[in-house]
């Protein structure tokens, strides 16, 4: 390390540390934004867990007479109603249960002979409610396994012989189509938010702070166009860029998992049935629109406020990160989402889109999400126009 290298290092460090924005970004913002986002995610997770414990489910039990304790233990779980069944239903979907416990018909004989015993809980990972039910039943199933072991021990006179394999298995019976729908419902809303945020950043900063940096701002301010016309034009451009990014991103996803994965041998493990009907595509687009306008207007407002491209990009990155965090929060959602969360911008869009993709849309959720996002989008547009009309903001140094 030469003296000259160190001199350059010291100069750059001093230069950086005297830049108030850098200080804010490195030393202040992480202590404000990240804890706030983590707390928000934690709050959402806690609320979801609370909600997950309260919803009512039905669990089918086939062969309950063979193992009465199973019916007893499962029935004792909060919110669970046992539906006794004489035989396995021909179709799980028609049985109107969220999980199915299948007890072998000759359970007693198996135990008496010391043969292996398998009690199976069938559920669907691709169905949130079914998956939550399986999780909720875990302590009850542990009790069932313990009861089976005891029964075997009693039949043997509690001798020290090795016990047979007694298992209570959880079996995911989701079809590839259901799994594809589940992955789509989980991934697509998040990816759409991610792509909208990523696609709008550069255009928004270039269209606002870029005008300041190029000194072209004055030329448009001195034109016959009103401030509102200028801002709305810019927001529309940002919106077009962000939505194009979202559409191409989803197309790329479909191409990768829906088309290429099934045709390329090494990718076949990743193949998913990601077919989404045109109506759903349209609804996804319509629900995305208010959130995308809100994000575009927010980024344009930030661009109006920022003094330089560097400052604008720094602020835009924070908006992007906040959006990604909110989008990610939709991953942790259970089947029954508290109404309040449909008023949290970005998250509400991801949640509503998940409902669209899983055919579980509730009108109140749709009104809350679209209504609040539209209101916020309108408010942010007004703020952007106000900032663009304020000479103290536009020409601040």
């Amino acid at each position, binding site marked *: 390390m030469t003296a000259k290298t160190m001199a350059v290092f010291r100069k750059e460090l001093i230069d950086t540390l005297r830049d108030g924005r850098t200080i804010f970004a490195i030393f202040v913002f992480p202590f404000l934004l990240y804890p706030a986002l983590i707390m928000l995610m934690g709050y959402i997770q806690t609320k979801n867990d609370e909600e997950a414990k309260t919803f009512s489910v039905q669990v089918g039990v086939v062969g309950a007479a063979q193992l009465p304790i199973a019916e007893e233990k499962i029935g004792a779980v909060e919110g669970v109603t046992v539906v006794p069944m004489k035989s396995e239903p021909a179709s799980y979907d028609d049985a109107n249960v969220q999980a199915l416990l299948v007890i072998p018909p000759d359970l007693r004989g198996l135990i008496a002979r010391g043969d292996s015993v398998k009690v199976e809980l069938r559920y669907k990972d691709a169905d949130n409610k079914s998956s939550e039910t399986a999780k909720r039943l875990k302590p009850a199933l542990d009790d069932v396994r313990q009861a089976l072991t005891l029964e075997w021990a009693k039949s043997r006179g509690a001798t020290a012989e090795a016990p047979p394999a007694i298992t209570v298995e959880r079996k995911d019976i989701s079809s590839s189509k259901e799994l594809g729908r589940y992955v789509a419902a989980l991934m697509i809303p998040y990816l759409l938010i991610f792509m909208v945020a990523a696609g709008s950043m550069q255009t928004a900063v270039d269209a606002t702070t870029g005008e300041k940096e190029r000194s*072209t701002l004055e030329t448009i301010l001195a034109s016959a166009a009103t401030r509102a016309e200028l801002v709305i034009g810019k927001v529309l451009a940002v919106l077009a860029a962000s939505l194009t990014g979202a559409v191409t991103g989803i197309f790329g996803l479909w191409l990768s998992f829906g088309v290429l994965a099934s045709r390329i041998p090494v990718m076949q493990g990743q193949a998913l049935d990601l077919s989404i009907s045109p109506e759903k595509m349209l609804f996804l687009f319509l629900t995305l629109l208010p959130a995308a306008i809100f994000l575009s207007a927010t980024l344009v407002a930030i661009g109006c406020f920022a003094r330089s491209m560097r400052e604008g990009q720094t602020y835009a990155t924070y908006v992007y990160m906040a959006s990604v965090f909110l989008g990610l929060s939709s991953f942790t959602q259970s089947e029954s989402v508290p109404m309040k969360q449909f008023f949290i911008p970005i998250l509400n869009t991801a949640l509503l889109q998940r409902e669209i993709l899983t055919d579980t849309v509730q009108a109140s959720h749709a009104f809350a999400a679209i209504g609040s996002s539209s209101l916020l989008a309108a408010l942010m547009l007004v703020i952007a126009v106000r900032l663009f009309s304020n*000479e103290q903001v536009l020409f601040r140094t």
Partner: protein
Amino acid sequence: MIEVQGLRKTFHDRKKGDIPAVKDVSFTCHPGRVFGLLGRNGAGKTTTLRMLATILSPTSGTAKVAGFDIVEKPAEVRRRIGYLSGDTKLYDRLTGRELLTYFGTLAGMDPAAIPARIEALAGPFGLADLLDKRVGKMSTGMKQRLSIARVVVHDPEVLIFDEPTSGLDVFGAREVLALVLELKKKGRTVIFSTHIMTEAERICDEIAIIEKGSILRQGTLASLGVGNGSGSLEDVFIEAVKGELDDR
């Protein structure tokens, strides 16, 4: 025509408090004449011109541009002006034609009339080869010619030039000044700010010497004494601002 009456602009700084940038400035610019605002950097030229272009609002006082009050009718003013600042750049990714179309549209021109107007400007402004070229690939001189064409695309009555030759070489500057004189011949009202004495002497019919936001002297070159005893415009300028410099 531009009629400025007691125009004042004060900026507020959290640390320094109120900073007066322009103090009670008054002057009149007539059609078919070039009015020069002569002053050093930071004298208040740009702030004055930005107020006339309705980019900034005056703290007090007012001005009429093309017959409309800049405070009460800013939209009407903007329809009738062309504004060019020397440090203004253009959009590098647009072609000359796209750029002129954009500003013609912002000025409220009939979209059908814009192509013909661009063709009409191409000859006098030497733009024929530039119209389909991207701005980013043009030389500084080409960009400045395009900038002026941009300012006049909607044929405004009043032209506001804020140091338009800034950063240009001698040839580029001469071209710009020739175009300004051409606009004067066409009867447009032109206000032109500069800190270059030779430019002001060459093209301005009237000059106002501005320093620390105040106009110290104004009039024609002859009435300011240029060439008849008081020496060159530079001598007149230094004599006028000397007292203000002593206060620094």
